């Protein structure tokens, strides 16, 4: 009798999302390990008015904002690193469609850590003294703002420091390299804040590039930074972060990164992008076809491929992993 948690992407979005929710994702940096396929499915199912909690912007947030599905967002970084400004998000922020609340890249994971520990606030020694403290897109009338980042008195020294509010998002969709059917997960590359996010969120869904047997986790328990007991569901989706990178699995797709960002810079471009890479997608295999099998092969031969070697023997064949998804979604 199987107690696995693997379900289809469509089913995961159907069961665990709703309009107006606090949706956290993009929990690696902008050009890697982003659970963007979950965002594509949110759009396919027409979710709206999302409150996006992204440690950093990613192509997922860029896309969700460009497509009008986001009304509020909190970020530490809103660009695309070497790929420049995020044109879809930028457009939505400039038009006022998205209220973007700014923090730094340390503030965001500390706020998640605070949520994970169920603290009412987190001490803040950064962001203070700047407009990150004094300006609030969520509370624009109060400028300078005194409510977004507050102050506490250190009871030991008597000196004043800052205090961040904490985060407990309704749902986190987290990209991982490998998951077993019970939701134990291995991330290769920087965790960024996926550990903290997996503890802060009220529900966690893993989006895994590959499914492995649980024996893999028993061989490498110190790598399993997200244990299954925290996880609601597992979605199997190869190339889940594309066009972004997944260390060990595939490189970033530079051409698509640029073309996608350019497309999201206009309404027409966004509509075209949605038609090609969102609306019509009919499951994993169709998606991989659209990326292109040759491109997939090329991106898979990157300089980090050796990082995956110790785990390859436990990876389930594509057909077996898909069968698990079908079985789980039907359950």
């Amino acid at each position, binding site marked *: 009798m199987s107690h696995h948690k693997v379900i289809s992407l469509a089913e995961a979005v159907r069961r665990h999302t709703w309009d107006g929710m606090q949706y956290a994702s993009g929990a690696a*940096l*902008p*050009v*890697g390990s982003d659970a963007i396929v979950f965002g594509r499915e949110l759009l396919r199912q027409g979710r709206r008015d999302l409150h996006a909690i992204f440690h*950093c*912007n990613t192509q997922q947030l860029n896309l969700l904002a460009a497509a009008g599905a986001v009304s509020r967002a909190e*970020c*530490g*970084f*809103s*660009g*695309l*690193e*070497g790929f420049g*400004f995020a044109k879809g998000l*930028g457009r939505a*922020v*400039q*038009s*006022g469609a998205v209220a*973007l609340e*700014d*923090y*730094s*890249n*340390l503030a965001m*994971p*500390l706020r998640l*850590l605070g949520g994970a520990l169920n603290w009412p606030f987190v001490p803040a*020694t*950064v*962001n*203070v*003294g*700047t*407009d*990150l403290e004094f*300006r*609030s897109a969520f509370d*624009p*009338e109060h*400028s300078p703002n005194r409510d977004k980042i507050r102050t506490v008195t250190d009871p030991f020294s008597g*000196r004043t*420091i800052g205090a961040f509010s904490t985060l407990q998002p309704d749902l986190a969709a987290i990209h991982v390299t490998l998951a077993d059917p019970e939701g134990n997960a291995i991330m*290769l*590359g*920087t*965790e*960024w*804040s*996926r*550990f*903290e996010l997996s503890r802060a969120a009220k529900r966690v869904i893993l989006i895994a590039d590959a499914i492995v047997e649980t024996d893999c986790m028993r061989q490498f328990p110190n790598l399993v930074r997200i244990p299954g007991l925290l996880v609601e569901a597992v979605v199997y989706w190869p190339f889940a972060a594309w066009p972004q*990178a997944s*260390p060990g699995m595939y490189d*970033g797709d*530079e051409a698509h*990164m640029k073309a996608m960002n350019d497309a999201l810079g206009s309404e027409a471009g966004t509509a075209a992008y949605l038609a090609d890479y969102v609306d019509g997608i009919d499951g994993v295999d169709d998606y991989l076809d659209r990326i292109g099998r040759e491109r997939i092969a090329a991106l898979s031969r990157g*300089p*980090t491929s050796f990082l995956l070697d110790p785990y390859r023997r436990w990876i389930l064949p594509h057909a077996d992993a898909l069968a698990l998804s079908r079985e789980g979604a039907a359950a």
Partner: protein
Amino acid sequence: MTQPYTRQEMMAIATGREIRDGELAIFGVGLSMLAGFFAQAHHAPRVRAMTEGGVYGATPVGGLPWGIECNRLSANAVSFTNAIDALGCLVASGRCDVGIIGAAQVDRFGNVNTTGIWGGDIGPVYRPPKTRLTGAGGANDIATGCKRFLIMVSHESKRFVERLDYLTSPGYLDGGDARERLGLVGGGPSAIITTLGILRPDPVTREFVLDACFPFSSVEEIRAQTAWELKISPNVQIVPEPTADELEALRRVDETGMLRR
């Protein structure tokens, strides 16, 4: 006779010269990483380089990384941890010796805006920017926590402003001991290195003063490209040209020629 070099290359080399061997140093993406890895390749082989993703001990392969977690950087790391570790335990704690950040706008006290362009004062009610930029990222944390940090910025008057539209990362705030009074743990910006020269803070007022021109720039040009009344050091220097060794080291790091475009 030296080789030709670009203004961007001069800026990267001048920045790299500020980094000393053995230091714990945090680099961002792009120019900052080029300057840092140039220093490592040239005169600081034991610099302890890290990124805000908690990527330790890596040197880029196959060209400049597109991001902190780009596979070009993940390919040979000895340790991957996380953001709280890198930006919190190592940077905001005050342990990190030096960081490098960029700027869309910088003011006379080395305060930096990378959040947005409003075309002037935002006003009493916060409103959307005309141009949204990249936000704080790790720059606010680096500027707050590092023992010192360097600002790399293209020297244009639209960037060297009298007043920032938005203060993203703290330099010396209002100047003087404003940082200390606020309790920020790091020492503040030690230099602004531009495409035209180097500015350094007055030790008392903390206002940035022109300390050196590049071989190809002049005090007049720099003044013209600075929107505030720039003070000039009484003994303003000319920064030595890149040596052949320096250029060779830099171009090995800048394999894709980003700085030569």
